[in-house]
């Protein structure tokens, strides 16, 4: 088991290494000069331009040999220094990211967990009731083929603008300050519903369909047939099928994390939700390279860690992996 986990750690470290290198390499090997690009967008005074040029060249590290740039990048990274944002100068990138992070997590975590739980439950139910199946399947396919940002826009249009049940943007009322007050909490909740729904629904469709197929597969497995042949009640057969079908779903969860995060980014933009998504859009529009790089690394690290945690959990959940690792019989 330890060897298995060690192998996984190696892959994740390698991935992290590759990601950081890509992150570092791209601005340096892309056509065009990032410093030039930045300056031309700023349209600064010639005098200021010179100073800025010097600053950026230094910040990017273009004034030192390339291998040194690489090492410096790593050194800074390990200190948690992701540079300073260009558009929000002199705020540090880390500060901006950490400020936006809670909002993104507030959307992501419930969306992931609830859609996984609800989707699997509904998928399992659909697998045994034909009538339900005939609704769940088409709905599920439509949902999973829906671009999250579009769903966000539609939800906003219907529920916020037309029906007026929910606010259309932001994470809380403009007149409020974040704090541990009931008023803020209520406002936060109201603003949270629609973006959450956009993420939840699309993911839900995916899990439901996946689980339905998995359950059907498990119900046809030899062990299910054997139990049924010995007269076991359907409840028992279904219980076994459900547990076994969950396993590949959990692996799927790890692999789908990247997609969910991407979904969160675009949904946040639609609702001007002050999370990493809106931050990213601003960074892209303003060519704030350091911020983009910082967000990129942050997301990757987050996804890697989450993957690793799921891998560990999986070893404990699936006896086959556990025993296979120990060399079995």
């Amino acid at each position, binding site marked *: 088991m330890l060897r298995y986990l060690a192998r996984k750690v190696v892959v994740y470290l390698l991935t992290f290494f590759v990601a950081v290198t890509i992150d570092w390499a791209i601005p340096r090997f892309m056509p065009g000069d990032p410093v030039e690009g930045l300056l031309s967008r700023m349209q600064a005074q010639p005098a200021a331009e010179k100073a800025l040029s010097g600053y950026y060249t230094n910040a990017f590290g273009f004034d030192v040999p390339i291998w040194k740039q690489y090492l410096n990048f790593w050194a800074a990274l390990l200190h948690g220094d992701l540079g300073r944002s260009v558009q929000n100068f002199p705020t540090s990138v880390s500060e901006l990211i950490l400020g936006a992070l809670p909002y993104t997590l507030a959307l992501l975590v419930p969306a992931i967990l609830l859609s996984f739980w609800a989707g699997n439950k509904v998928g399992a139910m659909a697998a045994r009731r034909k009538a339900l199946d005939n609704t769940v399947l088409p709905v599920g396919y439509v949902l*999973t083929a829906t671009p999250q*940002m579009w769903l966000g826009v539609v939800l906003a*249009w219907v529920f916020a*603008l037309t029906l007026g049940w929910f606010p259309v943007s932001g994470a809380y009322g403009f007149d409020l300050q974040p704090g541990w007050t009931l008023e803020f909490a209520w406002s936060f909740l109201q603003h949270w519903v629609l973006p959450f729904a956009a993420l939840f629904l699309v993911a839900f469709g995916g899990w439901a369909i996946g689980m339905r197929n998995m359950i059907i597969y498990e119900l046809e497995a030899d062990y299910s047939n054997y139990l049924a042949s010995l007269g076991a009640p359907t409840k028992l057969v279904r219980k076994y099928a459900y547990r076994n079908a969950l396993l*590949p779903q959990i692996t799927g969860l790890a692999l789908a994390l990247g997609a969910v995060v991407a979904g969160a980014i*675009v949904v946040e933009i639609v609702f001007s939700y002050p999370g990493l998504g809106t931050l990213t859009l601003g960074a892209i529009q303003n060519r704030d390279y350091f911020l983009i790089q910082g967000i990129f690394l942050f997301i990757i690290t987050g996804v890697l860690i989450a993957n690793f945690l799921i891998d560990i959990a999986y070893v404990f959940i699936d006896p086959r992996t556990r025993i296979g690792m120990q060399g079995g019989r």
Partner: protein
Amino acid sequence: MAAPRDLEPATVPQAGVATVGGPAVAVEPQAAAGAPVPAHRSEFVYFALRNWKFVLGLGVVLVFLAAALFGPMIASHAPLEFSGPTDQPPSSDYWFGTTSFGQDVFAQFVHGLRAAFLVGAVGGGIAWVLGAVVGFTAGYRGGAIDDVLNMLTNVVLVIPTLAILIIVSAYMNVHSYAVEAVLIGLTSWPWAARAVRAQTFTLKTRDFVDVARLSGRSTRQVISSEIAPNMSSYLLMMFILLFGGAILIGASLDFLGLGPSESVSLGLMMNNAFLSSALVLGSWWWFLPPGIGIIGIVGGLYVMNVGLDEVFNPRLRET
């Protein structure tokens, strides 16, 4: 198809924005059973046309394809041309109304469909080729080659596709949808590689392959006459899924403003609509069609895939 889990059944894709999580199509469970071969071409066609899911999905996709091919010919205005009054609802002059800049939404829509199909075909195609080659080589050769390719696959797999694409597109001004599609293809192949590898493993150990080898056929012959036909149905279904996934990823990229800005795509339409507050103005004719287009094409592809799975795997057919 879900993220391949060596021999484990699939899950549905998470509106494949980044990684194509994998459509619900139970393609992978068949990894254990082996993708079966229809006896004759005609048997395939017979069952395919009788499967309503396949027919429905294919029908929807073909409708949109026709719109993509012929729409731009019948559209009366160029998509980016500021031809008319701004923010008009659909009328006889402008079937889908106009944008805040006075552009013809219908023209944009059908041109956007073209871009979508292009991105799907090229992006999905590249991912497909890469995934199939890497997966097959790893599965068939095994050993050290497998280990290396596996590591490569895992590394690229875990990195969120959108993150990579954001970084690359941010620095590199993407000028055409073909380029965007290539980028998408280069980052979404790992999942396909894993699936093909698992399938190759199952087939490699099948008895008929051993028999072929024992009877002295060369590796190339074994691959082309024993393994390939069994994999062909699987590969076809994978391509469809990759196609759909590429479209979804492309739409997100365009929505973020990272796609080509000089032409039109469905994602870009949504981006523009959003940025011009079409939502607040209530210009539903502007932001609804692009989404419906994507849902239609991608959803149609997924449903088609389910139908194909039933056609190829008699076990799933209903009597």
